[in-house]
C-alpha cells in the first residue's frame, strides 16, 4: 500500500492549521440554504446520495492507490487534456465557477468537444448583474434549466447585460447539466465515495466563504485528503490544492452525473 499520494510542492495544503479568513469574503453565501431533517437542501434540482454509491472506508486507501497507479484521477485527465483552471478575477462568483467547472469536467469525461464556458453567464443573470455571492443550488438550477454560454460568446467574468440576449440563451441550451447528486453537509463518506467514482464535486466551505471544485480523494500521512481546483487562475499547482482534516468537510456539496450530450 502506498503511504502517501504524490503532492506537488506548489500545491497549497489547507488544513486545521490554516487560518480562517476573518471577514471580507462574500463569494459563498449559504444563508438561503434551508436543509431538511437529513441536511439536504437542493430539492428537485439534485438527487440525494443513494446507498448504491457508497464505497466502504476500508477500501479507500487501496482504491486511491489503484486510481493513482492507473492515472484514473480527474487531475490526470485535466493535465493530459491541458484544461486550464478557471479564473474568477474580481467577481464574487466562486459559487458559479465551481459548478461550471464541474460541467466542463463531465463534458471532458464524455469526450465531448472541450468548450470553455462562462461562469458569469450563469451567475450574472441570477444576481441581476450585480457582483454578489451565492450558493451552488442557484447555479445548478440555472445549469439544469438554461445552461451556460461558451466564453467565445460571453466573456468568463463579464457582467455586461448585452450578453444576455436571445442568441446566447439559445446557445446555452447546448451546455446543460440535468442530473446532479447532492451529499449531506460535512459527510466524509459520501464525499469520498463520489470522488472515488470519478465525480467532480462543487463544494462550498463556510470557514473559507468560498466554493471550489473537488477532483479526487488522495491518501496523505495515513489518512484521506482531498485534491481540489480553485478558480483563481494558476493559484497553487495549475489551480490544484489540497484540503485535509476538518477543513475538507464541505458545508454544501453537489456533483453532476452527466452533461447534455452536444
Amino acid at each position, binding site marked *: 500500500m502506498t503511504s502517501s499520494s504524490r503532492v506537488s510542492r506548489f500545491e497549497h495544503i489547507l488544513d486545521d492549521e490554516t487560518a480562517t479568513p476573518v471577514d471580507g469574503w462574500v463569494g459563498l453565501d449559504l444563508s438561503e440554504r434551508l436543509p431538511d431533517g437529513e441536511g439536504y437542501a437542493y430539492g428537485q434540482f439534485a438527487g440525494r446520495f443513494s446507498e448504491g454509491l457508497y464505497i466502504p472506508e476500508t477500501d479507500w486507501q487501496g482504491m486511491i492507490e489503484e486510481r493513482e497507479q*492507473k492515472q*484514473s484521477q480527474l487531475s490526470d485527465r485535466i493535465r493530459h487534456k491541458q484544461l486550464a483552471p478557471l479564473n474568477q478575477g474580481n467577481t464574487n462568483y466562486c459559487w458559479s465557477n465551481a459548478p461550471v467547472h464541474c460541467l466542463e469536467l463531465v463534458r471532458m469525461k*464524455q*469526450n465531448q468537444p472541450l468548450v470553455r464556458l462562462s461562469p458569469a453567464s450563469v451567475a450574472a443573470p441570477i444576481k441581476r448583474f450585480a457582483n454578489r455571492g451565492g450558493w451552488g443550488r442557484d447555479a445548478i438550477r440555472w445549469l439544469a434549466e438554461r445552461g451556460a454560454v461558451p466564453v467565445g460568446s460571453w466573456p468568463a467574468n463579464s457582467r455586461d447585460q448585452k450578453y444576455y440576449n436571445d442568441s446566447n440563451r439559445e446557445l446555452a441550451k447546448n451546455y446543460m447539466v440535468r*442530473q446532479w447528486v447532492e451529499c449531506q453537509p460535512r459527510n466524509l463518506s459520501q464525499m469520498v465515495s463520489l470522488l472515488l467514482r470519478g465525480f467532480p464535486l462543487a463544494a462550498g466551505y463556510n470557514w473559507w466563504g468560498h466554493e471550489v471544485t473537488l477532483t479526487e480523494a488522495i491518501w496523505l500521512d495515513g489518512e484521506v485528503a482531498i485534491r481540489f481546483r480553485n478558480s483563481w487562475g494558476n493559484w497553487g499547482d495549475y489551480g490544484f490544492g489540497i484540503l485535509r482534516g476538518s477543513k475538507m468537510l464541505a458545508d454544501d456539496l453537489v456533483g453532476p452525473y452527466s452533461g447534455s*450530450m452536444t
Partner: protein
Amino acid sequence: MLTLLLALNLLLDEGISPFPMTAVPQVVTPQPTPVADDPHPIGTVQREEFYVLQSEAPLLVVASPPGLVEITHEQGPLMARGRFAGGDGKTETRMLLGDHLYFIDAVKSGTVELIVIPVAATEAEQIQRQLVEVQAGPRPPPQPDTDTDTEPEPDGIPVDDTGGFRVLLLLDETADPDTLTAVDSLRTVKWLDDNTDDWRRWDRSTAETDGELDKEEPVWRRIWQAARPALPEGPQLLIIQGKTITVRPLTSQVVQELEVSR
C-alpha cells in the same frame, strides 16, 4: 489447459517459470507409442493476442531490445477473453491466476528477449530469460471452426453506415468501481483517442431519458437508435465498425477487449 496453468502458478514461488506454457496433449485412448511434448515456454507473440506472464510475486520484466513489445502490469487474478499466444487462434476465455500479471503486447516485428527478475531476487539464478518472436504484422485469418459444440459469436447489430471506427462506453456512476477506474484511466483514454475516429462515454440512465440525445451528433443518435433495443442490462461496450455494432459487457479489461475487437 486451465489445470496446467493453475498447477504452474501454485509453483511459482518455488522457482517455476512465469512464462505462458504450451499444454501437454492429453492421450485419450491408449496408443502404441504415445508422444507428449514437454511443456515449454511459448516463443511467439502476435499483435492482438495475449501473452501473459503470471506470478504470485512482483517481478521486474525487461524487454531487450526495447520497442518491440509493450509491457503492462495488472493486478490478478482476472478473467481475460481474447486470443492467447500459443492458442488455436480463436477467441477464448481464460482465468489468469497470478497476483501479478504482465501483459506483453506486440508492437514491432522482431526477436525480443524477456528478462524476468523477481523484485525480491538475491541470486542471479532467480533471473529468467526467454526469447520471443514478435509478429506485429496483420494476423492471418483464423482457421474455419470445425468444433460444432462451441457457441458462435453473436452477430453484430446493423446500423446505417457510420463510416469509421467508433466506441461508445455506456455506464452509470453506480457501476463497479474497478470498471470505473479502468474507464477513467489515461491508458483507456489514450487508446480511444489514438485508435478511433471518435468515441463517447455516456451515463446510461441519462442516455435513456427521452430528449437527452436530441443535440448529439447525428451519427451517435443513429448508433443509439439502432443499438438501444438490443442492449443487455448493465455497463456495455459498443464497438461500431462501419455498418455493424458489436456489444460486449464493459469491464475493467476494456482496453484488452478493444484490442481484440479492433
